[in-house]
């Protein structure tokens, strides 16, 4: 794990409000699925002192990608960056997902949370898994499924708020229909609580506001049966039974 400055290779709006940023970064080459990086917003101008965390979306040799949604001041600023501009990166950070071979897998992503499961899907595929993506979106405008996600998916099921298919009830039925060995989830506390009540082995990657990203400041606490844990160091990947949401 290292702090370093990198040139942006591309930063494309793949869908209104969603950007795919690529940069060269050797230190991230060996990052594992579920790990994340933090990016400094305005550096030592420090109008915005907190670094922003993003899951690694894709690693292609030394080219690393993140997929992010513009939600506030920081991501808005990132969205204006152009190829050749530099960003300051810290990573890889956090633990990674426990992975399984030759298993029946569901990746259950809500909104941009799906981006946090892409790298994992890619790796699981290489381990011989059969992968169904259940992608939950508000509506078509936030559907971020791209060729990369398609490349490792055996099946992709899109559920949406607009037509009611994204209800917990419906998602539960879909999952039970598939009867997977393992579920990985990101992006919805509602779905997480549902998984906690289901019988399947399930993992989740969590988001919490962060200070250091390195395990030192204890600001990224989430509740667990054994007290507070740190999303940045003990996570961001947890067994769903391990967290209290």
């Amino acid at each position, binding site marked *: 794990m290292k*702090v370093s400055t990198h040139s942006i290779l591309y930063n494309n709006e793949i869908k209104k409000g969603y950007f795919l940023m690529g940069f060269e970064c050797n230190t991230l080459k060996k990052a594992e699925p579920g790990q994340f990086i933090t990016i400094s917003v305005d550096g030592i101008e*420090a109008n915005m*002192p907190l670094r922003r965390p993003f899951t690694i979306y894709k690693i292609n040799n030394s080219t690393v990608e993140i997929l992010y949604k513009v939600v506030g001041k920081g991501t808005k600023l990132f969205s204006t960056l152009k190829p050749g501009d530099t960003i300051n990166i810290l990573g890889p950070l956090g633990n990674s997902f426990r992975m399984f071979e030759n298993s029946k897998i569901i990746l259950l992503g809500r909104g941009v949370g799906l981006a946090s499961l892409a790298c994992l899907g890619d790796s699981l595929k290489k381990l011989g898994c059969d992968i169904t993506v259940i992608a939950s979106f508000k509506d078509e405008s936030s559907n971020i499924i791209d060729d990369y996600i398609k490349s490792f998916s055996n099946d992709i099921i899109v559920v949406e708020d607009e037509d009611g298919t994204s209800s917990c009830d419906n998602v539960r039925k879909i999952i039970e229909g598939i009867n997977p060995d393992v579920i990985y989830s990101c992006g919805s506390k509602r779905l997480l609580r549902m998984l906690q009540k289901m019988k399947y082995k399930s993992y989740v990657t969590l988001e*919490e506001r*962060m200070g250091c990203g390195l395990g*030192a400041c*204890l600001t990224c606490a989430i509740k667990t049966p054994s007290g507070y844990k740190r999303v940045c160091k003990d996570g961001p990947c947890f067994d769903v039974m391990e967290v209290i949401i």
Partner: protein
Amino acid sequence: MNLSVNIGSLKLRNPVMNASGTFGLYDYKDVIDFSKLGAVVSKSVTLDPRQGNPPPRIAEVQSGILNAVGIQNDGALDFVKNKLPKMKDIDVNLIVSVSNLKVADYKKSTEILESANGIAAYEVNVSCPNLETGGTAFGMSCQETYNVVKSVKDVATRPVIVKLSPNVTDIVEIAKYAVDAGADALTVANTYIGMAVDLKTRRPKLGNITGGLSGPAIKPLTMRLVYAIKKAIDIPIIASGGIMTAEDALEYLMIGASAVQVGTMNFTRPDIMVDIIEGIKEFMLNEKMQDINDFIGSLSI
């Protein structure tokens, strides 16, 4: 070129260290070369383990952050048994921050720390809410500051640095009580009580509702406190508030601080303290300055 400074009997190889709670100990070995730092300060340790405040514990505001961690830690015994040994081979002064919610606990936790090796000094954090008097910090009362410091001094064989709360009408008065109780140095100061809310959710941004403001936004406030205390009392001061660049550090030294702590900006750049030390050296080179001690307190009015 001499960068070393003295905080009472404590000799630092340079005047730059981290602020408590914003930086790791042994587990930061990958991030920074400890042997380049003047000292490292531990996260505050209490007598009993504390689980801390409900999340969210941090929020960003303009040029600063609010935090309400609530001194989560595993207690003084665990610190001595499990954390301290891992620092053994790390070549840097370790200052252990001591905090508590009852006066009596300060003495007990200091006794536990006294039983261990590898500690260079204590930093007594009096900004914790005093449970016995209903939640205002010890550091907001002259008498309580005195009582806490006295109880630590009674058992401490190492230098005792007292970290003051800035949330007071007259910090000079409180500083005098800390010094009367035997403080060897002062850290000026902790965070300023603040609050942020979210228009969308119509809720506070922190689980604890209020939190401590830190970062570049507070620098002018803490500068004033350092200046006011330095003018009134002859005691070594470690400045802590909003330091972002070598210039910020130098400004504090110029108004009389003997050393500085970097807090929030470690979040922005975990290796920033090394840059700050390099920047101080560069400044000394440009100004043809041999000894940083000649610069300390050189402000002209």
